């Protein structure tokens, strides 16, 4: 009995002090600081990259239109010219070409996993594809440089480096993104949809081609755009196999550059604040703006999801 009196007392003491109110504030403030850190970081990132990138035009007086459309990149002569179109072209061509290679592969892999051999697909193929996503980009670059480039050099005219090598390396890198989203899209399909098609006597392929593919189109596109976004921002793997010559190539097997490869190569060799340096920040700004575009396209596509 005495013990329970003690208990009452210890309860009451706690109640008077109400420490849990302070504790609730600790939780609220701690988590709020964390999320605030994240949001502030993102905003300062956008702000600083944008202000640096814009200073090329404001401080150094480079014409923005010339930068976007100019074909000549020659920053180190007396009258430097900053035409970034070759880089922009390089980035778009490699990433879109990579998506063109990876999209059908990803779709087929998804069909395999969901429709053809779910057991084997889920336990083996899917983990394999996820492993591809875990391989560091420098390793992709290294393999590209020591396997794909020599192979292309033997098979095609030129040095082997260029858009084709870059796109091929990128396609393997973005394959996991595209496959994962395609797999999710296919497995979310209601069973009735396919059964309806089979009931009409359609073969599996007809069902996939006429029913499954059109219904999941927005999601397939989401996966492809996500893949392009990733390829667009990838720096080192591409830089290692693309050759890095600052002009628009005449073939897929000729040295060229992308936005990321130009930044990677020159950022360390230019002095902060110089026009040669600022113009690299303008390239970064283009990259960042493209990220926004990709995010909004993906949001738009997700909004159009048919299921």
């Amino acid at each position, binding site marked *: 009995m005495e013990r329970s009196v003690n208990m009452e007392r210890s309860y009451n003491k706690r109640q008077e002090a109400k420490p*849990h109110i302070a*504790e*609730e504030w*600790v*939780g*609220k403030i701690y988590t*709020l600081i*964390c*999320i605030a*850190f*994240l949001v502030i970081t*993102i905003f*300062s*990132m956008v702000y*600083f*990259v944008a202000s640096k990138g814009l200073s090329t035009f404001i401080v150094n007086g480079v014409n923005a239109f010339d930068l976007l459309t100019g074909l000549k990149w020659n920053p180190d002569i007396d009258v430097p010219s900053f035409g970034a179109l070759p880089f922009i072209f390089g980035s778009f061509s490699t990433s879109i070409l990579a998506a063109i290679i990876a999209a059908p*592969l990803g779709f*087929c*892999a998804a*069909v*395999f996993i969901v429709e*053809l051999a779910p057991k084997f*697909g889920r336990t*083996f*193929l899917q983990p*394999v*594809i996820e*492993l*591809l996503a*875990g*391989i*560091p*980009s*420098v*390793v992709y*670059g*290294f*393999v590209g440089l*020591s396997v794909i480039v020599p192979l292309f050099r033997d098979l095609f005219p030129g040095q082997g480096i260029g858009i084709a090598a870059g796109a091929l390396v990128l396609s*393997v890198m973005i394959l996991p993104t595209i496959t994962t989203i395609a797999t999710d899209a296919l497995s979310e399909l209601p069973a009735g949809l396919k059964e309806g098609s089979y009931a009409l006597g*359609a073969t*599996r392929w*007809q069902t996939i081609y006429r029913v499954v593919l059109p219904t999941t189109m927005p999601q397939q596109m989401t996966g492809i755009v996500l893949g392009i*976004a990733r390829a667009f*921002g*990838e*720096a*080192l793997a591409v*830089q*290692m196999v693309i050759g890095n010559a600052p002009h628009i190539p005449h073939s897929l097997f000729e040295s060229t550059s992308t936005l*990321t490869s130009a*930044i*990677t190569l020159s*950022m*360390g060799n230019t002095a*902060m604040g110089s026009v040669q340096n600022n113009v690299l920040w303008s390239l*970064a700004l283009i*990259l960042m703006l493209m*990220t926004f575009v990709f*995010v909004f396209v993906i949001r738009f596509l997700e909004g159009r999801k048919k299921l």
Partner: protein
Amino acid sequence: MSARTVDKIATGIIMAVAGFIVLILLGLLGYILIRGVGHISWHFLTSAPESIRAGGGIGPQLFNSVFLLVLTLIITVPLGIGAGIYMSEYAKPNRMTSFIRLVVEVLSSFPSIIVGLFGLLILVNKFGFGFSLFSGALALTIFNLPLMVRITEQGLRGVPLQQKEASFALGISKWKTIRSVLLPIATPVILSGTILAAGRIFGEAAALLFTAGMSSPRLDFTDWNPFDARSPLNPFRPAETLAVHIWKINSEGLAPDATQIAAGASAVLIIMVLVFNLGARALGRYMHNKFTAAK
């Protein structure tokens, strides 16, 4: 051609593609391991690199990668879990919250090179941390926070509502409930997600080129005072990681055995990433089994 033939051909193509993808992975892994493993030796893993002569190792780079990973996780985990808790437990379903979600999504799609540039501008120059492990760890933190937030949210959303109700009904505060009831249940998801993120951190190079730097000072592995310039533990020294090293020797390596070193280093990197991946999988499965077996 009849529909049935087309179906057979299509099935064949899909099978072939699946096989082809497996071949790509096996080829990739096989190529790197076969070319690289032969070059791995105790000497290679522990000695310093040589710039012009053959026979250099990757000792300091390997140490830097591991140390940087530890530093990054020390900063990322509390921040990411805190922000994830906010998003899943405190954020009210309003426009502010969906705006924050959009912002986090944008950050998660930023190319890592942009994060690296931001690090160069703010951490290295403005805050004066210089090319250092600390700058690198912060840049990697920014790079990984969105992932950490998503993992935490996912883990917390998987906790049954009944657990929360049970705790609240005992007069337990919300914060205590989160810490002592919800987080322990979400731990398997958060932990395996974190290990996967660790693999990503370990292999990242683009965000580090301009933050942790592309060189390493001569390290004195007998000096463990973190305030000495030559101490490996000094977080304010430049540190070239393994991934950065692979990139550097591929683009400007002068040593005659640069390719072998790149292959060996890639093999080490791949093995580490595989360990992280399989570790996360095994841990997730183990905790899941333990969890469901008890029910």
